[in-house]
């Protein structure tokens, strides 16, 4: 594998890898432990205290049904981030498997898989998830399928490109001559560089999955109320934007920080990959 030589084309920006990983770590910790720490029921309504500003009892105020906004943002974290993780893991699993098959299989397999990924890339990203959610009813499964389907072609393409490069290297040839079976060669020599390279895509994919999930929630086609999901919360609070800007800001900031963390971490991984490959 050759590193991109045109470093001029890469924006020369310091990307603060440690800061981005801290941000990602903080969001994951929020998703994992937040609901245990903030024990308030995110769905408990109190119609006598709607749209209240921040107070000791409700640090981020209450929404239009008197529910605690802090609890809803915190309990929304495992949903938004967890579903994003599921989507991206599934997409990278499918993409890597098909990419390896395309690189290692017959020409026909290659052609079929690549045409399929062309076709998927010819769909506007959000349309498939929208149609699926619309027909099957809002919920986790249609969203998972829709987002996964739009993400896998990128993984397949990158896997195929990396695998074809690795398969031509002398150590793989040596392993083939030594009589190692194909699955062993794939697992030992091809998969590790593929996973290193796709790490960037995985991290960036998490960011775009968080965006898609919140967009579907916002359109009313994702997770359904009263589930505390960030996009759905924004949809519910939108009519009260003028009276309760702080309550609205909370889920917005949560989405922004998650996506920003994944984007910066993805760029940090990309830099790291380029650096480790250009090193002698």
């Amino acid at each position, binding site marked *: 594998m050759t590193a991109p030589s045109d470093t*001029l084309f890469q924006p020369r920006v310091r990307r603060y890898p440690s800061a981005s990983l801290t941000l990602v770590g903080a969001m994951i910790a929020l998703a994992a432990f937040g609901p245990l720490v903030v024990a308030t029921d995110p769905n408990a309504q109190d119609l006598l205290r709607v749209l209240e500003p921040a107070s000791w009892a409700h640090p981020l105020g209450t929404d239009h049904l008197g529910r605690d906004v802090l609890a809803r943002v915190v309990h929304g974290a495992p949903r938004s981030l967890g579903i994003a993780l599921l989507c991206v893991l599934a997409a990278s699993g499918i993409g890597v498997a098909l990419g390896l098959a395309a690189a290692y299989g017959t020409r026909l397999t290659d052609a079929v898989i690549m045409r399929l990924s062309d076709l998927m890339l*010819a769909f506007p990203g*959000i*349309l498939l998830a929208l*149609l699926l*959610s619309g027909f099957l009813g809002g919920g986790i499964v249609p969203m998972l399928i829709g987002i996964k389907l739009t993400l896998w072609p990128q993984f397949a393409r990158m896997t195929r490109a990396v695998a074809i490069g690795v398969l031509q290297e002398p150590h793989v040839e040596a392993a083939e001559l030594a009589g190692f079976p194909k699955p062993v060669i794939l697992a030992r020599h091809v998969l590790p560089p593929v996973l290193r390279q796709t790490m960037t895509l995985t991290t960036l994919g998490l960011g775009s999955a968080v965006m898609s999930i919140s967009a579907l929630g*916002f359109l009313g086609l994702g997770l359904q109320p009263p589930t505390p999901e960030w996009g759905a919360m924004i949809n519910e609070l939108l009519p009260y934007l003028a009276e309760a800007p702080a309550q609205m800001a909370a889920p917005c900031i949560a989405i922004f920080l998650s996506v920003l963390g994944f984007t910066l971490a993805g760029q940090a991984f990309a830099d790291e990959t380029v650096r480790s490959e250009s090193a002698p």
Partner: protein
Amino acid sequence: MNPIARAIAARATQALLTAWVLATLCFAFVHALPGDTALRIAAARVGEDRVTAETADRIRREEGLDRPLVAQYGDWIARLAVADLGRSLVSRRTVTDELAYHGRFTLGLGALGWLLSYAIALPIGVLAGFRPGGWADRLTTAVSVGIASLPSFLVGIGLISIFALTLRWLPPAGFRTGAHMVLPAITLALGLAAYSVRIIRNSVVEVRAAFYMTFARIKGLGARQAFRSHGLRNAAIPVATFAALQFAYVVDGFVVIETLFNYPGLGELLVKALLARDVPIIMGAGLMIGLLYAAANLIADLVCLTLDPRRAARAAA
């Protein structure tokens, strides 16, 4: 074969294939749903609680739902070929009328947002590219990464709270006057500019470091003049390529933006139809958006081929 004709043929085939897959998916979704299709259509027409077995039977006969699936599928594709998409279950207008009406708004918003994004990104990108690593460059990068990390509806909500709710300069949503188009167009433009500004900046940096620019400077031209007469056209190639590609990404953006601003375009039509289970409209709008995307991709390909002859040579090889 001429590379341009070949590219058109390849893209047109892909567009047709996309349309066919979308049409088949729509058909499959409708018929694979659990429960009785006729009962669901009846529920959409007369309301959940007033559906009787007779209404369902009548609809089953009217819509030909009692015939074999293969016949229904053939019928659906044949009607699509002559652009007969049926009528909306809600408004009772024909789907083609609805698509034509809402499509106009979407095309207007898309074109305005796209133009606006380059009005924003071009000067900023060139400024950042002239001093790589300078304060303008660092600020541009920080802001563009920040905006790229915001889903479009968050950008829109931010703009609404500033310009509509606090300053009261512009209407927050709906569509009556041209002023209603300003905020949606800026939202779309900011999302696009967050990406294109980086491409512009990089291509300016790259061109300014090229040998012919050094030569122009040695020849005695000033930095600005050298860039105007030698750099600009070279820097324009990747930018124009990306600009054409972004026209396709507009399709992705407008569904959410139109819904947020209650702007009567195709995306808003699709989302309303999805929430109301208005199947003919869902199918029509889905198909239309897919075809728009394919058409935008075709235009992008053509622009790239015309601008960069090297690409055409490679495509022909």
